[in-house]
């Protein structure tokens, strides 16, 4: 495995998808510190639906006891990858190992799975439903565990109500409980925070962190980049079925050198935001309200840009920053990278 620090060539800021794929496949952004046993190991996994390659030649190593974030635009292959790990879908090529053993069929008991869509029997009472899922996974003391989780996530008083009486957030919590019952060593969570209010999201976030403390390997997908940054030790991004990022947040940010200048200007500076795009070395200007953000072109000197800024306006503060995960996501999967011919949705699949 090659460390980022070994990378000799600086990463271009305006990198194309093909370039990123090539870069990743060469192993430049695969960094593991103190690597332990991999809970999940994908080797050259491919899944094709009709003429669409939903996942293409994907290799991934997910360390035991980590929280691994899957990001990527809609239809990029996240859910398909998760379904293959769970064993619901079978890869057309490559292999998947869980805890060192190859997956053949549904790996019962080893994986808890929270699908993106809410899929619960609506007429069943909540407790009965959860006990059904726990029993299906082979749990022994399911009833007590259900009681514990219901109390933990504030659903105890809804235990004897039918699922259809629950709010969307409550249903999501219920589905989460169904996924983590019987303490599976691996938990796959597809969009666990979607549709949750901040309070519910926080309680779910705490539950996920507690799972990790118990040693559970958690794989979660999300479109919420700050959440991914805050929770995940590793980030994997898939785009058009191909891996485009894989590593820790710091490693990924390291790939994208400090090419962001954030600054604020005085109120009477009349030229704020005007013509900044014409400043030599500036590739993109974003007005964030109280703060302006400039993205530097590849190879440009931040000092020269700053000097030009000072000559044009009155700066109150400025900082040279690394791109956020959100920025990186947009750079890879933003409109500039869109290719209509390759963005067929996974109809009949996702």
């Amino acid at each position, binding site marked *: 495995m090659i460390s980022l620090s070994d990378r000799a060539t600086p990463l271009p800021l305006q990198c194309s998808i093909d370039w990123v794929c090539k870069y990743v496949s060469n192993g430049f952004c695969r960094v593991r510190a103190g690597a332990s046993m991999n809970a999940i190991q994908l080797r050259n996994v491919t899944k094709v639906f009709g003429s669409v390659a939903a996942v293409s030649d994907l290799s991934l190593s997910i360390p035991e006891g980590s929280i691994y974030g899957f990001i990527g635009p809609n239809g990029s292959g996240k859910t398909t990858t998760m*379904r293959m790990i*769970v*064993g*619901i*879908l079978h890869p057309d090529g490559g292999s998947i190992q869980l805890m060192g053993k190859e997956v053949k*069929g*549904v790996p*019962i008991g080893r*994986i*808890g*799975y929270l*699908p993106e*869509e*809410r*899929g*619960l*029997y*609506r*007429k*069943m009472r909540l407790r009965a439903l959860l006990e*059904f*899922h726990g*029993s*299906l*996974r*082979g749990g022994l003391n399911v009833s007590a565990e259900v009681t514990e989780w219901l109390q933990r996530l504030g659903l105890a008083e809804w235990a004897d109500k039918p699922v259809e009486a629950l709010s969307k957030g409550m249903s999501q919590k219920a*589905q989460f409980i*169904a*996924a983590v019952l019987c303490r599976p060593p691996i938990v796959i969570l597809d969009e666990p925070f979607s549709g949750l209010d901040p309070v519910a999201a926080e309680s779910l976030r705490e539950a996920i962190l507690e799972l990790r403390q118990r040693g559970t390997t958690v794989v979660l997908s999300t479109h919420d980049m700050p959440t991914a940054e805050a929770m995940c030790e590793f980030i994997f991004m898939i785009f058009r079925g191909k891996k485009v990022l894989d590593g820790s947040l710091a490693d990924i940010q390291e790939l994208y050198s400090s090419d962001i200048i954030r600054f604020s200007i005085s109120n009477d500076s009349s030229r704020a935001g005007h013509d900044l795009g014409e400043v030599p070395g500036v590739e993109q200007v974003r007005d964030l309200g109280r703060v302006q953000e400039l993205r530097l072109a590849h190879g440009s000197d931040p000092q020269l840009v700053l000097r030009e800024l000072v000559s044009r306006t009155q700066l109150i503060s400025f900082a040279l920053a690394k791109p956020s995960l959100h920025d990186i996501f947009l750079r890879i999967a933003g409109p500039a990278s869109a290719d209509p011919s390759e963005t067929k949705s996974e*109809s*009949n*699949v*996702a």
Partner: protein
Amino acid sequence: MLHKVLLIARRDYLAAIQTKAFLIALVIAPILFGGGVFTSVITKKRPDIRPRLVAVLDHTGVAAAPVVESIERLNKMELHDPETGRQVMPEYSFETITADSADPDGQRLELSQRVRSGGLFGFLEIGPGALHPTLAVRGDPAAGLAWYANEGAFGETANWLDGPVNDALRRIRLSELGVDKSRFNQVLANLSVYRMDLVSRDKTGQVRMAQRNNLEATAVPIGMALLLTMVVMMTSGPMLPAIAQDKMQRVHEMLLASATPSELICGKVLAAIGQSLTTAAVYLVGAPLALKALDMSNLLPVHLLPWFIVYLISEITILSAMAAALGSACGSPQDAQSLNIVLIAPVVVPLIMLSQLIQRPSGALATGMSLFPLFTPVVMLMRQAAPGGVPVWQPWAALGGVIVATVGIVWLAARIFRVVILMQGKAPKLSELVRWAVQG
């Protein structure tokens, strides 16, 4: 695997039977399915005995009085049940009307208006050719005999009048021919052709003859076929929409993390079998009680109950597996509704052809259909219940075919189910379903 199959089956079974819809269907279905038979029994037990005034429009000038006398005589004989003394048919009274040869249509129209207004129950027209019928008269109601009434398509009055009216006309003809009046009864004696069961030896070696019980000959096979059809439709009918709904609500994805598609489909099939046996048990307990109350306990074909259970299980297995495959292929509730017709065809087709099949239960059509696995349960059961039964080898051969078909269909259905269960959006084409069934 079995543990999970049983868990899934238990959940689906309880979900199916713990609904108000299931309980309502238990009550409503027999009324809908057996409505005709029930109504017929009730009608016979409680006939319409309101007095009926009938006009006799006589074009012969001589037939009205003997005809009325003949009808009244028969009416008087059949008016009361000889055993109970209870009135079992209406009392007829007559109004004789001389035909107006100048305006026969106007006269018929006027009498028809009286029938419509309720003044008359009906009118009998004795045409000018009724006394000396030629071939031409036999094909012309206006020249022969005609009955006008506001009865339904299956009104029985015309059939009932046939005997006494013709008897009276024959007596007039015999009189014209100079036959001695005292010999009329001998000449006109009418013998019934009795339907008999085939002769057989009983356990003691005695040759037994038995008059065929028409009610038993038709009610038992029809009843068995209807009961099987009803239970099958009650179970498999809601299955396809329910599976389609589970799929649309993404329930299966959650389950597939804990169970394989094969376990899922086996659980659903097992639940359907449990539900059908529960339904059947209710009726198999209720039917003897109902028959006893109607004093028809002899109609209960106890020897066919094991076959009934076997056929029920096989039919439900086939149809519930098909429901799982088709339901999982549905993209919308509308798809499920449309495909339900395909699902219930194996029980509805024999039902549609029931009258043909019951008339010739050993005919080529009934035999062929009973040996076709999808139709075997309903048609073979009906044939076995019919008088004369079927050759011993046929139910066993058909059962072999049913078992092979059941295994094959469940296997193909499981392959389709596995492929389409997670698909969303447009429903797959028939050609795609066939390809997945073959290729998996």
